[in-house]
């Protein structure tokens, strides 16, 4: 039998305690020493105004981040309105709405169409009923173009979704979803998982609306050989694309503008799909009967197939809304006004890399990089009706996506 470990001396134990104590004291000292920097580093602005009401905003992380439009909009608003703004981040719509329970806010920024559907119809986590939202003053809602207008959910930016590529890397540029199945794009597509990514979800609905449910899944099966990766988030897919792992990535029509303006790289292009995909007569996605009726006048990049269906891209729209239990409701409306003003829209456009909802801002002198994309995308607004029924079908379609094991 090997002798047991000898009992340690108390002095050694005291040394351990001293080391732990020293670390705690060090941590406290660092915190105390940094206290002067807290207001500047924490969400509260150093020049915050102590008088007047406090506006509490809950927004998605890329809006709140230092590269997003949030901090500059807040600074502008605080200086003009003499109001203190507290800007808090949340990841996605599910988390954002749950966080609303903990952090009652006067304004929620960044719900897309799917998030908006949850905000309108899903029961609140701790209660049995859905969230209630305030009807917003007409002087605010009237700033939003008719196509996006809603009394409770204010659209503040938008962008078509499709495929981005680099000039010179493709022999031919795809012009329709059907083109993506061509052998030349073998292992060339970067997609996102619709269960965890908003553009990924838009793509799934795009396919279903273009081909119908049965043929849509068949299309996805055929597409499998051409998919390099289905990532969990847009940023992962885009990272692989910028590294040159694959030549086509599912992204926003505004992505090339970032590269052109920030990186001075003009190689990036958005593949506008102007050839319609044949929709099979038996194909139906639940609730898309409206889809088939909605083939109105085409404009911009849209065109029709033999059956009269127009080619289209899904559109991501981002909304802001005021909870019914807001405290600084009028102040929140003023902030919305700022977001929709020329200055606000320009900031959002340049920092969120999305299109402004107001035409005159996108087409203003000096915004040429956005103007071309905006004009092309405008034609797609006619397909907005096709998108209306999508959010309600999300859960059912995602279950089928998972079962299909694509």
């Amino acid at each position, binding site marked *: 039998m090997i002798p047991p470990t000898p009992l340690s001396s108390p002095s050694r134990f005291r040394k*351990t305690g001293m080391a732990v104590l020293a670390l705690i004291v060090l941590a406290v000292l660092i915190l105390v020493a940094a206290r002067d920097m807290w207001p500047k580093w924490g969400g509260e602005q150093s020049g915050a105004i102590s008088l007047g009401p406090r506006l509490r905003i809950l927004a998605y992380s890329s809006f709140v981040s230092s590269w997003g439009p949030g901090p500059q909009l807040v600074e502008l608003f605080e200086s003009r309105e003499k109001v203190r703004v507290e800007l808090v981040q949340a990841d996605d719509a599910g988390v954002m709405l749950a966080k609303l329970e903990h952090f009652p806010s006067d304004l929620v920024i960044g719900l897309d169409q799917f998030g908006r559907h949850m905000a309108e119809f899903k029961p609140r986590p701790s209660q049995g009923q859905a969230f209630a939202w305030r009807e917003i003053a007409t002087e605010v809602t009237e700033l939003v173009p008719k196509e996006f207008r809603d009394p409770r959910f204010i659209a503040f930016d938008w962008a078509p979704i499709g495929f981005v590529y680099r000039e010179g890397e493709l022999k031919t540029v795809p012009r329709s979803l059907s083109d993506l199945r061509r052998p030349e794009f073998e292992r060339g597509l970067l997609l996102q998982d619709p269960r965890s990514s908003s553009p990924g979800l838009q793509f799934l609905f795009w396919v279903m609306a273009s081909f119908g449910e049965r043929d849509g899944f068949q299309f996805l099966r055929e597409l499998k050989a051409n998919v390099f990766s289905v990532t969990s988030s847009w940023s992962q897919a885009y990272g692989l694309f910028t590294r040159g792992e694959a030549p086509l990535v599912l992204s926003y029509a505004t992505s090339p503008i970032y590269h052109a303006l920030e990186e001075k790289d003009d190689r990036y292009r958005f593949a506008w799909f102007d050839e319609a995909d044949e929709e099979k007569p038996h194909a139906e996605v639940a609730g898309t009967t409206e889809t088939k009726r909605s083939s109105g006048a085409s404009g911009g990049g849209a065109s029709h197939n033999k059956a009269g269906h127009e080619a289209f891209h899904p559109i991501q729209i981002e909304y802001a809304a005021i909870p019914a239990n807001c405290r600084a409701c009028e102040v929140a409306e003023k902030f919305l006004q700022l977001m929709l003003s020329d200055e606000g829209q320009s900031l959002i456009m340049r920092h969120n890399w999305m299109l402004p909802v107001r035409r005159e801002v996108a087409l203003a002198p000096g915004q040429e990089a956005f103007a071309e994309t905006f004009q092309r995308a405008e034609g797609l607004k006619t397909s907005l009706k096709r998108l209306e029924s999508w959010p309600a079908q999300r859960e059912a379609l995602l279950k089928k996506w998972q079962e299909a094991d694509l």
Partner: protein
Amino acid sequence: MLAKVNFRWSLLPLVATLLFVLIAPYALTWRFTSGGLHWPEGAAELLWRSLIMSAGTATLALLMGILLVPGALRAQGAWTWALILPATVPALVPILTWLDLFPGWRGLSAVIFVQGLMNAGLVAVSLARALETRWAGAIELAITEGATPMMIWRRALIAGMSGELRQSFLFVFALALTSFSIPLVLGGRKAVNFEMGIFQALQLEMNWSTALSLSLLQLALLIGLVWLLRPRGEEQIQTRARLRELLGSRWSLALGLVPVAAMLGTLLGRAGQGVAQLDATLMRELPRAIFASSVVALGTSLLVGLGLGLLARQLPSERERAWLSAYTTPSAVLLGFATLAIGQGHGFEMDLLRMTLGCSLMFAPALWRWRIAPRLAEFDRQIEVARCLGAKDALIATRLITPGIRNDLAWVAGLAAFWAWGDFALSSVVAGRSQSLALLARDLMQAYRLEAAALCIFLCLLVGILQAAVTQKLLQRRD
């Protein structure tokens, strides 16, 4: 006996506090559920698939880990950290590496391979440490008597260390059960687990009842597994010797370092390009983020080290240790929301406090399961002897347990610090702004600055390892 009873009663408030801490995340999540628990439609399939994925991962990690034990015996200091590194880096790093090396390999087998390879080094280090602690003397003697290395591996490692093998299996199984990003990106329909079920319940359906039900089912599964793998009266042998020269192998160490080299290669390539994306905003944000991350990491390491140390000082019995090993906190999102119940509003200091508490609660169960519980088992015989000789439990805790597990506590404190540097799953729920370096990396990724994000992740690893090493050095015994 009376002394033991009195001692336990006197520490009742501490035990009650610990119990409260363990139950609190679940209790706080309950507030969000509207109609109690709710089992999703495919719960049985989810359970079955979770079991396959976790068991496959744990088995592969164990097999690879056994192969790497000679390398782990050879490794010292930084090399030991290098072997463990793949198991501790943010999931994005192994995912990118895998996509670089095997772009076409997906599905359940890919998930099992990636997770198995990631954890193999950690299992190897754990087994090597146990081998040195328990069997070194006997192995020295056996080699002197002419035993071949193969005989030693078969008799000492495989047959004599079944307890450690079971612990390692349990540890990796629990990690695989709660992993999220890797199965989501690399898996398909067949590679799903509870964490993905919880995520879907929250993100798609906002159904907290389902999320909590799945969390509890996950906990029940771990309890069941702990019961199945419980120790069966193995003899505890106390010994200390270095087996480096006797059984260590440079080849095995080199093999163990392949995953970390591949990951660092991928990350360095991107981080190098990230230097070009260093703009004024990033330069302004970096010091704040590094400071915040270091505070959270320091706080987490202290809380985990002190918490597990206090728990160990209660001299938990074999059964109590097993129960604690079965404990796991709910998923990062659920735990994040439970942590939001602390204090009101957001602010720099409140965010850091919540991130520290959340990270501590999230990491402590895994570290207990991996390092502290098996180590405490080695003291059972000595505690029994000391009690027979009349030593009070307070004296045993102070003079035997605390110094005996000090190095292990230093290890887990260091590892907790490192993990805290890389966390963004919990922090993104808890923080009002992107306070930490990991959150800053996420912001950069969302703002097209992907190479700068890689640079931040690389910094997370670098500074995280540095802080972990310093924490470990400060806390460990110097003899």
